[in-house]
Structure formats: structure tokens, C-alpha cells
């Protein structure tokens, strides 16, 4: 079911964050995580047999069974925020590559332990 898939995607994202040391892959993992989250959010508002929460000339009154519109609104916000952080993350990735010549965090080395 979609909801389980959402949680699975979240877990895959966490797995990626745990194991990957390539910056691009980390960003991808983060995106998978967010994607899973978004799927989960949408699934929380799903009503069986519900229709999309838009009044049209066909589904023309509010007595019908709609799915919960609020999670959809929230997801929109979450997606845009995810886009913002991804853009910034990629910009950082490019800056790191310019600075260190690699995208692999293992090769960059950590802070000196002084």
C-alpha cells in the first residue's frame, strides 16, 4: 500500500544517509527521504472512494466525499521547501568540489582534532 511505500522510502533515505559518502548521493538520499515523507503525508489524508478536493461542474457541491485537502496543501509547501534545500545543497556540493577537488566526504578529511 502507498502508506507503507512512503515509510519504506523514508527508510531507504535513512539507509542512504548512513552509508553514502558521496555528496551527490547524500543529497539524493535526502530527497528520497523527503519524497517518502511526502507520500506518507498524502496517504494520511486519503479516503477510500474520495475524489480530489476540487469543485468542478461535474463534482459540483461539497456534500461529496473528498479526500482530506489539508495534507495536499502541506505537501505542496514541503515540496517547495525540499526544493530550496536541495538547491542550496547542490550549490554547496559544487563549492566543495571546487575547494577539495572531490565529492567524496571520506576523501576530504574531517576537522583536525586539536
Amino acid at each position, binding site marked *: 500500500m502507498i502508506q507503507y511505500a512512503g515509510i519504506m522510502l523514508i527508510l531507504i533515505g*535513512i539507509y542512504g544517509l*548512513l552509508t553514502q*559518502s558521496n555528496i551527490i548521493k*547524500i543529497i539524493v538520499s535526502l530527497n528520497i527521504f523527503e519524497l517518502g515523507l511526502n507520500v506518507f503525508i498524502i496517504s494520511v489524508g486519503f479516503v477510500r472512494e474520495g475524489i480530489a478536493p476540487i469543485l468542478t461542474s461535474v463534482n459540483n457541491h461539497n456534500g461529496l466525499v473528498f479526500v482530506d485537502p489539508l495534507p495536499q496543501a502541506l505537501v505542496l509547501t514541503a515540496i517547495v521547501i525540499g526544493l530550496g534545500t536541495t538547491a542550496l545543497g547542490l550549490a554547496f556540493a559544487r563549492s566543495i568540489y571546487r575547494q577539495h577537488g572531490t565529492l567524496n566526504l571520506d576523501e*576530504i578529511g*574531517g*576537522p583536525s*582534532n586539536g
Partner: protein
Amino acid sequence: MTFDIVVILMFLGAFSAYLISKASLKAGAYATTVFSLGALAVLLMGRSEIGSEFSVLFMNFEVTVIGWYFSGVMVLVYAMTSFFNSFWMDKMMYPGSYNFLYLFSLAGTLGLFFASDLITLFIFWEVVVWSSTFIIPMGKSRRAAVVYYTISSIGSMATLYGIMLVYRISGTLVIQEAFVPLKEDPLTATVVFVIFVMAGLTKIGIFPFHIWLPLAHGSAPHTFSPVLSGGLVKMGAFIAYMSVAILPAYEAFEGSLKIMGIPLQLYFLMILGAISIVLGTLMAIKQEDAKKLIAYSSVANGGYILIGILMMDQLSFAGSMMHLFNHAIASAAAFLAIAVVAYRTGTTKISELGGMIHRMPLTYLTYLIAIISLAGIPPMGGFVSKWLIIQGLADRGLMFMALAAFFGSIGSFLYVFRPLAAVFLGQLKPEHEHLKSEPLMMKIPMVILMVLILYFGVLPKWLLGIIGEIQVAAGIEPVMMSGNTILAVNGVLNTLNVFMIFGFGFLISLIIFLLMQKSRRVGLMDTYTSAEFIYTPELYHYAGAFYAPFERLYQNHPSVEKFLGAIAWKFHELGTVVNALFFSHKPAVTVFWTSVILVMITLGGAGI
């Protein structure tokens, strides 16, 4: 009314001393003298106002006999030492700040002794700690200040816990009332007592908290060592007194196991005091530096004071209170004498000195009288107080303590003689041939202290009268005197007679000295090398390895310093471990810990 003015005035005085120092350093230093002497005068005149209460900002004060007595001792030491300040102004890094902190810490001690609630007490305690912490590094050691602060704050934080616990139980912070409910609950009372007295132990420098004394006293600016040793150490005695007398420990521990009539809790502390006496004495014998030597003697004397306070009886307690005064002025005098030497020669190492008597006889005399008092030799004040303490101990049959006390007295002969012989007697070093005598401003406090030491050794009646009042206030039998005779259970001590006898002996030896043939002076190097040239003369200085055979007996002793150092190092290592475990530039590390915590807490939650 006068006392609140004194407290406020001292704080204002601290600031004005700083401002005056900006205009003229010497004037700032004299300001410290003027203000501390003023405080002393007000204290002496205001004795009739004991019992008055007042509040400043959110802090409350009450002048008690014991507070008055302690602050008198403290201000006396500060005032006498302050005469020396002006000579060090051009040598200090922050002379203005020194003057400021000097008076500021004095103001803090006054507030401490007058505090009527526990928070006020704690506030001034900490004020004194941090203001003195910043004076110490102006001397020779940065580490000393840190060790001093750490040890002090271990004690004060423990005390703070005690204060909070007391407040939680009794709902009040007023010193006289806060401890009352503890009497019914010996277990809590034990906890409160032990952690409360910690601050006292750290400040007096009782084993195992003694390590800061030699470091701080030995390395502080020469003008502050007398205050540290003679004055600030006594704050610890004040806390110890409060824990024992106001708790009151003997009532609270009525039901606990007793050894020779002393509750186990107190007996344990007494043992620590006894250890301090022995340890301080043995370590003092070893020291190469005159200041460190007196610092270790402070550890030993702190042991006497603590034991006497813990006894809470007619004789030992009185002895302890008196010893507090005697030790304060004697150790201040001794440190001042060393300060004079350091001022003129620039060193305090025993092996680099010698023959100072030829250049500064008054300093020699001051030092002589001070250490006689410290060692507890008649006819000085130190003898009377130690006699009282030992009388009390013997009376209760506390032989271990009494033995330690005796050991301390005899051991102190060894260590006080050494700087006397090596620094002041013996032969003057060639480079010190042209030293000048001590300046007049330095002579004044030394003469005053000398007179006081001698006076209270011979005529302690006035002092013991005040101590009797303290004893009455604490609810114990006051020490009895008849004329110049102190009445104890196992004997009496007529201090005037003792003085007469010693005076007579002194006269006889003086006559012998004058009649006997004078010694012939030999060049310093001639004595041991027969005029042969040597490269390392200091090895041949007779003060080097003075008590070598005796020191060899305990040279491999276990060391608390090393143990505490190891603990500090463990903390350091733990910090590195924390850093390596949790902080990385890779997100995976933190994600890992996040997952682990998530698992642990949810699993734990599922189990409940």
C-alpha cells in the same frame, strides 16, 4: 547601623581605589590601606552593635559575635598586608585591578561573616573566590589560579547543593532557622553536614583538598600570600563552625555511632584534620621555597583549627578560635617577612638566600616571633591556643588526635627552623652585600603584628573573653580564666608566669651570648671548599637537602596531587572521546546516532 555602611563602603572603596590607581598607583595602594584600616576601626568601635540586622539590595545581614570576631581577624590581616601593596605597584601587571580586587575580596569576606541567610552567605563566598582567583595569576603561576578556583568551586558547589537541600526541607534560608528540621532526620542531616562542610574543608585546605594551598600561596603575588594564608583560609573555619554549631551537629547525630563520645561523622572529619596536621608538617619540612613552606604549615594549622571546632567543647573550641587568630597574624607576619626579603632580593628560594639578619634585623625578628608562634612555642600566642586544643583532646581521651597534634608541634620545630637558619642566619651572599634595610612602611605592620603575637601570648585575657562570648552564643561552656591563668581540667596555664620564665631564660642566654667570644667571619665559599673554585655553589649551600636523612624516611609517599591530577586527566580524555564519537564532518555519524537513540527510546517505551 554602622555595619551596613562598612559593607557598602568597602565595595565603594574598591571602586574608588581603582579610580585613584588610574591617577596615581601609589595613591591607589595607600587607599587600600586607608579603607581597610577604616574598616578595622569601625569594627572595633562598633562592638556594642553586635546583634544588629540590615539588608542591602536583596541580601540580608546580621552581626553576630562570631561574625564580628572573624571579620576582625580578617580585616586586621588585610590592613596589615595593605601597607606592602604600594611597593609592588610597579611590578604588577594590573596594579589598579589589584587594588580593586584586594578591597573587593575584603568586602566579600565582611559580607560573608555578617550574612544572615544562606544565599547571602553563598553570594559573598563566591565573590571572594572569584575576586581572589584573579589576583593569584598576577604572581608566578597561572595554573595555581585554576587549581585554586576548581578546588574552591568543588567545595562551594557542594555547599550550594546543601543549601538547596536545606531549603527544600525547611522552607527557609535564614541561617538560624534553616537547620532546625534536620535534627529529626539524622540521615539527611548527615548528607547536609558532609556536603555543607566541604566548602569549609576546601578553603581551610584539609586533606585531600590541600593541594591548592602550596600552589596558590606559593605563587600568589607576595602581597597577597599573607592574605590568602592568614585571612581567606579562615573562611573555611567559619563554614566549619556553622556546620557544627548551627546545625547543630552534636544534637543531630545524637543517635549515630560514637567513638570516644564523638559522633562518627565528626570523628571522620577529625581524622582528616589529623591527617592534614601530619601531612602539612611532613611536606613543609621538604619544601625548598620559603613561601611554600609556610603554605604547608597553613595546612597543618588548618587541621588544628578544624579539630578544635569539631570538638565544640570548652577548651578545644576556645583553643581553636584563638589559634585562628594566632595563626592569622603569625602566618601573615611570616609571609610579610618573606615578602620583604623577596622585595629586596627578588627570590624566595631558600638555597639562594642567607644572612639576611645582617641587612634587615627587624624582618628577622618578625619572622622569628611569627614562627615561634606558628610552632606553638611559649611565650607566643600559638602556644596558648595549641595548649588549649591538646588539653581538650586529652580530656576526651582522643589520643590519636592528640598524638597528631603533638607530632605537628614537634615537626614544626623542624620546618620553621630551616628558613630561619638558611634565609636569615648564616652568611650573606656576595650579591646581597649591598641590600638596603626594609622601608619604613614595611616596618609598621611588622612591628604591629609582632607586638600582637607577643601580647596575646602573654595576656590572652581580652581575646579569650571574646571567645567566651562566642562559646556562650554557640551554647557551650565558656573557657574560664582567673587573672592571667587559664583554667583547664587537667591543669592550669598562667601565661604571665610562662613569659617570665622564658624571659628569664632569654636574658641568661643573652648574657652568655654577649660574654662569649665572637665568631669569626669567613668568606662564604671558604667554608666548604677551602678556597677551591666550584661551579655549582648552590649544591653546597647548607640549606640544600637540610633534612635529607629525615625526608628519606617518607620520600616515596603516595601523593594526592597525582591522584587528583589523574582524575583531571581522565576528564580531559573523556572530552576527547566525546569529541571523536559524536562530532564529525560526515552526516552519517549523526544519522547513525539519531537512529540509535530513536531505537533505544522507542524500544524502552514499548517495554513499559
